[in-house]
């Protein structure tokens, strides 16, 4: 594609370096102010359970909205048209899913000083098999998720600088910074940088919206184009489209709510009130983020017609470059956006990495491999394994797979399998441990096999079929095997509500 790229100069690189150094600075300041955090899992991984409304909100925001939302969603809207409007309500569904379990889980977290989601499984089911399976599912899902972010960092830097900064250099630069500030300040660093990154992203996206409307024409112009050339993009989703819509709402609602790093943030809240207020703000964010990037994608239909799937993946880069070419104000606004997108990806990646390390520290190494180890040692092992995992993933990211969407679905399909154990376990004392294990395992295998073999039923996502199977096995299995009076009493005592 032949086009003038506005970011190919020094300003793009400059803003990246500035963002990078701010993140590093946050890490160093956090480290100097909280030197004691490297002796305690709670201090390091949960910020000492002290996150207030604003920081908690932005850190939730960063876990759920990534640079992928900004770079990957407009191309989907571009290809699917208004059918992709589903991206707005599906982010609201996450909050609906939280209502199912967050209130009680917060109480449990407080009562038992929980640090990781798997720790709750250990407490509730007292089963090595369940805890380890759940931990592996989470680690695998998180690994995939992290990989997706690394690929996105590379594509973002490469795409938005028009190739001036190569993919690999972008990935390495930010991965090194992320590891350093994460290592220095733990959850505090991550949450503070999330706040900065969230604000930069929001500002940048709004400027992109304004620029798109000014220079490419608003929604009415795009609608005229669609009416003339691709009326199906204005159409009401029917048949498979409708099933897909419904599936996305359920899959992403439950899936994103049970993200291990999202669950962990419930434990990090300073108080119930802070948690409630953060969720309440999150309920409105889809309109300001998913909604805005959706409009940008729709405007793209008119601005750059007839792109192939591969070309459309670069849509945001093309639009931002064209807008930046107009005048100095937009030029700098797009530079800000450019930094904001990368920062948002980094902020999602750092949350994922921190949770990844915490599962290794607490649930695998700390519970089974070396329970006698000091917290300091557990922390160190978690950090080191995290760094090693990033190293492997960076290597994989060198050869990024297809479009972003496919890997996105794959991680959900596995992470969602912990939902029945998590949610039912909080309320149903008669839930049987063996049924939970069998359900989780069967659901995972079913969803993975279906995905790998390319099988699909009724157009619903494979993860949902796995989840359904998982749920049925949990419920029916618990009824058939029936828990002993002792176990039921124990479960009741653990929950204690």
């Amino acid at each position, binding site marked *: 594609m032949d086009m003038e790229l506005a970011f190919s100069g020094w300003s793009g690189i400059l803003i990246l370096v500035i963002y990078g150094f701010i993140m590093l600075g946050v890490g160093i300041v956090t480290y100097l102010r909280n030197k004691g955090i490297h002796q305690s899992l709670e201090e390091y991984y949960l910020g000492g359970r002290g996150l207030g409304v604003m920081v908690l909100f932005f850190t939730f925001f960063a876990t759920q909205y990534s640079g992928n939302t900004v770079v990957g969603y407009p191309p989907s809207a571009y290809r699917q048209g208004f059918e992709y409007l589903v991206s707005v309500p599906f982010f609201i569904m996450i*909050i*609906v899913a939280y*209502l199912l379990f967050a209130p009680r889980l917060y109480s449990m977290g*407080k009562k038992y000083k929980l640090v990781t989601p798997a720790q709750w499984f250990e407490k509730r089911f007292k089963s090595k098999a369940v805890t380890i399976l759940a931990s592996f599912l989470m680690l695998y899902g998180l690994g995939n998720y992290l990989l997706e972010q690394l690929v996105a960092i590379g594509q973002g830097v490469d795409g938005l600088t028009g190739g001036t900064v190569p993919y690999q250099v972008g990935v390495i630069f930010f991965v090194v910074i992320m590891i350093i500030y994460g290592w220095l300040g733990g959850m505090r660093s991550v949450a503070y940088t999330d706040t900065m990154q969230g604000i930069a992203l929001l500002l940048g996206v709004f400027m992109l919206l304004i620029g798109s409307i000014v220079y490419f024409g608003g929604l009415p112009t795009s609608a005229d184009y669609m009416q003339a050339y691709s009326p199906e993009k204005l159409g009401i989703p029917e048949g498979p489209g*409708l099933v897909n819509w419904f599936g996305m709402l359920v899959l992403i609602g439950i899936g994103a709510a049970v993200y291990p790093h999202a669950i962990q943030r419930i434990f990090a809240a300073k*108080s119930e009130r802070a948690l409630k207020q953060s969720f309440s703000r999150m309920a409105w964010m889809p309109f300001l983020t998913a909604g805005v990037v959706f409009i940008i994608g729709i405007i793209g239909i008119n601005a750059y017609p007839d792109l192939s799937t591969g070309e459309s993946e670069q849509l945001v880069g093309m639009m931002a470059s064209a807008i930046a070419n107009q005048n100095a104000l937009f030029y700098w606004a797009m530079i800000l956006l450019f930094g904001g997108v990368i920062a948002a990806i980094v902020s999602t990646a750092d949350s994922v990495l921190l949770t990844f390390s915490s599962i290794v520290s607490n649930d695998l190494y700390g519970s089974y491999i070396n329970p006698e180890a000091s917290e300091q040692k557990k922390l160190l092992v978690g950090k080191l394994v995290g760094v090693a995992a990033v190293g492997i993933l960076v290597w994989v990211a060198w050869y990024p797979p297809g479009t972003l969407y496919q890997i996105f679905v794959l991680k959900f399909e596995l992470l969602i399998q912990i939902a029945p154990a998590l949610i039912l376990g909080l309320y149903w004392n008669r839930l049987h441990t063996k049924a939970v294990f069998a359900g989780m395992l069967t659901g995972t295998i079913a969803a993975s096999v279906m995905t790998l073999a390319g099988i699909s039923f009724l157009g619903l996502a494979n993860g949902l079929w796995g989840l359904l199977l998982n749920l049925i096995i949990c419920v029916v299995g618990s009824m058939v095997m029936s828990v002993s009076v002792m176990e039921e009493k124990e479960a009741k005592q653990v929950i204690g509500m």
Partner: protein
Amino acid sequence: MNKATKEPIKNVKVWIILGVLFAMINPWYFPQSFEEILIYGIPLWAVVIIIASLLLSAYLSYVLKYHWVIEEEQEEAETKGEK
């Protein structure tokens, strides 16, 4: 103390309303004509979905604020005690 606690999951009314709102954010109930009418470049069916989504967000904010009270009172009391 337990009397004052409110847990959203136990409130049937909340889930009925959320169920209705969920039905409204799925585009299954529109007549074909809703894709031809455009309001500021947005097809009418999509406008309805957006309005339903706004209602869902508003209702969630309400439920979060008034129907989830488990630890709050005790926590507030503790904070006051510290001061």
